[in-house]
């Protein structure tokens, strides 16, 4: 939340028209900055000369809160960072603490975790697709996407009693056993998704306006992605087949057969295609996990009072938006000494300026959409 460095050549009250440059304040209340992001644009006509992001409007001090809560008590708070993919956040945090505790998680719990995180990935991508299309001016996909997302949220609601900020996992495994029709619901959702993805393709993929609006917009090459630390679909759309689920498998992802979709163009259209295919791959994983769902306990050997030995661990998972890392430092007490979250949205957003320079105002909107940020996670 800092003042911008993009001061215009002359800011003289009403005389800004004399200069060729225009400083446009986009946000924090703007229809397409996805929350309370404020982007200060320096424009020449409609061409973007530079951007400056002002963030922090949603800063709630999650990392500070962690220091004042016990390990279990902090778990619900991580759901409120990337609230679109709360399950992934919870998984990352639980895994980090489990790493500190060095506990074994039962097979069944792992499997259910995989199913729920993949469902959440689909839900997160659906929300991204809807809002991204809305930013580009297609107003129908958002409703269709919410229709499908609703099915995921229903599964979450039936499983753990909450739809958005689920708090589905607990340190050491799961709190809730699956409900009766869990497997059936998951498979039914996969069937539904495969049918509906076709509808999205009909609406958008072939559409010439959509293709024109997205092709060549917001290019971030593989080199730039690495330099800016950009991960997730953005990196994969640049041709790097890097996915933590494959690179450093966790939760038993090595057992499932799936592909990492990649594209070479590194532009908005390619990211769109990558995410669309990721949804299909997630459905594939869900089907396999449901088929292989073992029986057994759902919680590992974890004491009621969690008190990890002094030490530190960095655990990262492939969240829908990229690498989500938790760096947890324990001093041997009941409360974590420090929890550092490595949020994918925050790091990816830093590349906005690089992607925007030289494009048009309308592209800025498309690029913010394609980065797929959640301000709850950017600001924490």
């Amino acid at each position, binding site marked *: 939340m800092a003042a911008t460095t993009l001061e215009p050549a002359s800011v003289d009250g*009403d005389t800004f028209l004399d200069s060729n440059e*225009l400083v*446009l*304040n986009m946000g924090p209340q*703007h*229809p*397409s900055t996805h929350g309370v992001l404020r982007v200060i644009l320096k424009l020449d006509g*409609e061409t973007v000369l530079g951007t400056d992001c002002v963030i922090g409007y949603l800063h709630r001090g999650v990392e500070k809160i962690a220091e004042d809560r016990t390990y279990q008590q902090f778990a619900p708070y991580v759901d409120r960072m990337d609230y679109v993919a709360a399950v992934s956040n919870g998984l990352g945090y639980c895994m980090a603490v489990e790493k500190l505790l060095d506990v074994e998680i039962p097979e069944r719990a792992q499997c259910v975790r995989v199913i729920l995180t993949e469902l959440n990935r689909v839900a997160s991508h659906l929300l991204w697709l809807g809002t991204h*299309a*809305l*930013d*580009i*001016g*297609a*107003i*129908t996909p958002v*409703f*269709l996407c919410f*229709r499908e997302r609703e099915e995921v949220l229903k599964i979450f609601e039936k499983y753990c009693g909450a739809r958005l900020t689920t708090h589905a996992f607990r340190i050491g495994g799961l709190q809730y056993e699956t409900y009766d029709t869990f497997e059936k619901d998951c498979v039914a959702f996969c069937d539904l998704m495969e049918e509906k993805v076709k509808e999205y393709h009909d*609406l*958008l993929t072939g*559409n010439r*306006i*959509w293709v*024109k*609006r997205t092709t060549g917009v917001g290019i971030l090459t593989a080199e730039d992605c690495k330099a800016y630390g950009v991960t997730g679909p953005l990196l994969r759309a640049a041709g790097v087949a890097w996915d933590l689920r494959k690179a450093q498998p966790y939760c038993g992802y090595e057992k499932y057969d799936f592909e990492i979709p990649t594209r070479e163009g590194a532009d908005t259209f390619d990211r769109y295609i990558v995410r669309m295919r990721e949804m299909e791959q997630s459905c594939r994983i869900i089907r396999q996990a449901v088929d292989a769902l073992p029986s057994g306990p759902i919680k590992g050997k974890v004491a009621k009072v969690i008190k990890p030995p002094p030490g530190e661990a960095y655990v990262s998972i492939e969240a829908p938006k990229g690498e989500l890392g938790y760096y947890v430092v324990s001093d041997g007490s009941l409360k974590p000494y420090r929890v550092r979250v490595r949020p994918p949205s925050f790091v990816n957003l830093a590349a906005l300026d690089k992607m925007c320079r030289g494009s*048009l*105002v*309308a*592209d*800025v*909107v498309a690029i913010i959409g394609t980065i797929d940020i959640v301000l709850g996670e950017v600001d924490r």
Partner: protein
Amino acid sequence: MEQLLANPYLPSIVMTVVIILVFPLVAGYIVLAERKVLADLQVRLGPMRVGPYGVLQPLADALKLMIKEDIIPAKSDRWIFWLSPVVSTFTALSAFAVLPLSDRFFVADVNIGILFILAMSSIGALGIILGGWSANSKYSLMGSLRAAAQMVSYEVPLGFATVTAIMCAGTLSMQGVIHSQLERGVWGAFDNYGLMLVPTVLFIIAGTAETNRAPFDLPEAESELVAGFHTEYSGFRWALFFLAEYAAIVVISSLGVTLFFGGWLRPFPNVAWLEMPLNTAFPAALFAVMGLGCLKGVPRQVINGFRLLMLALGLGFLAVGGLFLLPAANEAVIGLFWFLFKLAVMVYLFIWYRGTFPRFRYDQLMDVGWKWLIPLSMGGLIVNGIVQLLVRG
């Protein structure tokens, strides 16, 4: 009194007053139709609360807009800010003067009717440009700049498409165009062995752009410029802009219907045996279905007032349907029916686009306009001219 009634301008004046009084309500219902159709396209219900199925929503909206606080930005150019919605609304409503609603319902049949409509829609852009500029907001300014460029670019293909149709009809009078289509026995869109389809499609595209409708709604692109030129407007001033936008849609659609789709003519105007099924049975059946639909909805309404309203609506539709069975009444209103029916189809088309397509980007909009629409429309004009010359002599 008798002298007054004998005044030749009296019907025109009455029509003008009726249009000015009724159109805001009609615009309100077009908005409702837009919301309902968009809701249908988007698997939603749409407005459902004010009246049964939201039929009273336009009245509620109008009431709300009227009593809303009127905000004029502190550093705005007050007079121009005040003036621009008026300019927009005035020009849009003026164009109604030459619309041939039927062979007997129109304000004036001037021999330059089409030119008048094009002129009015051009001046309408001025209201948008001034409104955006005077608000002294950067978003509004960009919106009005976009509007200016867009209007200039898209008026050219619109003009060419219109000229092609005029050439085909041989007159600039709106009524004359329809009469010419009646004589030739074919709608403008299918004239010249179907070659007129090209200007028809171009007219629809350019007309969408001319009225700032999606996918060409850049001046008010919500996701980029918040609301574009009317970002700073609120309350009734904003409503005037809204009214102007919908008036422009009606005007452009009417122009399209007149030039290309036979105006108030029924389909196949020269096929005599279609007279009964199309002119009597079709409208009667249409209104009967609507009326019965409303009556079917009566028991589902929980509130008594809503039940009465639905009942009244249903009976009203049935009565209108019955009207078409009376030969004298049928003769009087069938032209109006066909005109409004075609207009409704056009407006539906406009809404349908909006519900489906993403928005163009500014430079792509210009590309499409200058590199595709203008050459195509010029080509259409030339080819149609040659065909006409060769065939008609």
